[in-house]
């Protein structure tokens, strides 16, 4: 889902860039409330894992593949704002070292995958988890469902940007909308499954390190008065 240079015009790209930078500043402050010495290497490892997992495109349709986004996975493991930072760093490394995702589109991609995917996906997770009774045993399955939903959510970020700043005139936004929605729901099935399995494995071994679980050993930022 990495947007290359050229798809979206400079105005919307710049606006997304400013949003991404502002979000990064906010994320640094929010994540600073709960990140401890112990969590720093884990958060860095989550960034490396998301990078690695994004290298693995799996077949989805004939002629189309998808890969893990990892936003909900990161957000549930290290919190939504640290998850936003994880996605931002992965996208910056991909664009600068591997020419994956346009340089002028870094802001767009951070808004879609960090803000919509990680933070937005985490809000879906938290709402579902609370509706489901907030039991630790249900963390992996709600993580999976939220991860599935986060793919079309992040993809809708692209559609909005495309509608506002797409560089092609003679194109039906409705048609793009349905195509993007459909394909990303399919990729979301893979996202949900992988997230369910990984969160399940971490919950079984160290549930106190899972931010999105009531068993988390640290402090959650939404519990803080500040």
């Amino acid at each position, binding site marked *: 889902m990495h947007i290359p240079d050229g798809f979206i015009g400079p105005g919307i790209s710049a606006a997304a860039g400013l949003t991404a930078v502002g979000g990064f500043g906010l994320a640094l402050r929010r994540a600073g409330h709960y990140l401890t010495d112990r969590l720093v290497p884990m958060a*860095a490892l989550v960034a490396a*894992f998301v990078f690695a997992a994004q290298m693995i495109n799996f077949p989805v349709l004939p002629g189309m*593949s998808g*890969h893990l986004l990892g936003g909900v996975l990161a957000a549930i493991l290290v919190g939504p704002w640290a998850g936003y930072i994880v996605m931002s760093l992965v996208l910056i*490394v991909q664009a600068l070292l591997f*020419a994956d995702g346009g340089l002028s589109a870094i802001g767009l991609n951070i808004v879609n995958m960090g803000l919509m995917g990680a933070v937005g996906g985490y809000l879906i997770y938290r709402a579902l988890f609370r509706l489901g009774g907030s039991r630790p045993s249900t963390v992996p399955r709600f993580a999976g469902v939220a991860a599935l939903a986060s793919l079309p959510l992040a993809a809708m970020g692209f559609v909005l940007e495309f509608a506002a700043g797409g560089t092609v005139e003679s194109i039906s936004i409705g048609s793009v909308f349905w195509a*993007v929605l459909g394909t990303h729901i399919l990729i979301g099935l893979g996202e949900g499954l992988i997230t369910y399995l990984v969160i399940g494995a971490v919950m079984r071994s160290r549930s106190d390190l899972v931010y999105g679980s009531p068993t988390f050993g640290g402090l959650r930022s939404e519990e803080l008065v500040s």
Partner: protein
Amino acid sequence: MSKGIALFGVGVLITLVIAIVVSQFASTQPDGLEYVAEREGFIETADDHALAESPLADYGGDSTPNLMVSGLVGVLATFGLGYLVFSLTKTGKTTARG
């Protein structure tokens, strides 16, 4: 704590295996967005990446050693950058509940 180190070690190992070994078997088909852009006819609006000529562009292309190096470099870069940024983020807290 030792279980935390064990989890960390397993995580590092799995991450490296995914980036260096499993990446060799990844699909090379277009991803969801590229696929839609091709079908809807706006793929041509993409510009060449400014760094398209860099050695690790597109994860080193089709070459197996280049892809392995790309995986390793990317894991080290994201881990190192993550460690740096998250170290700056935390405000000197050493315990979970301070």
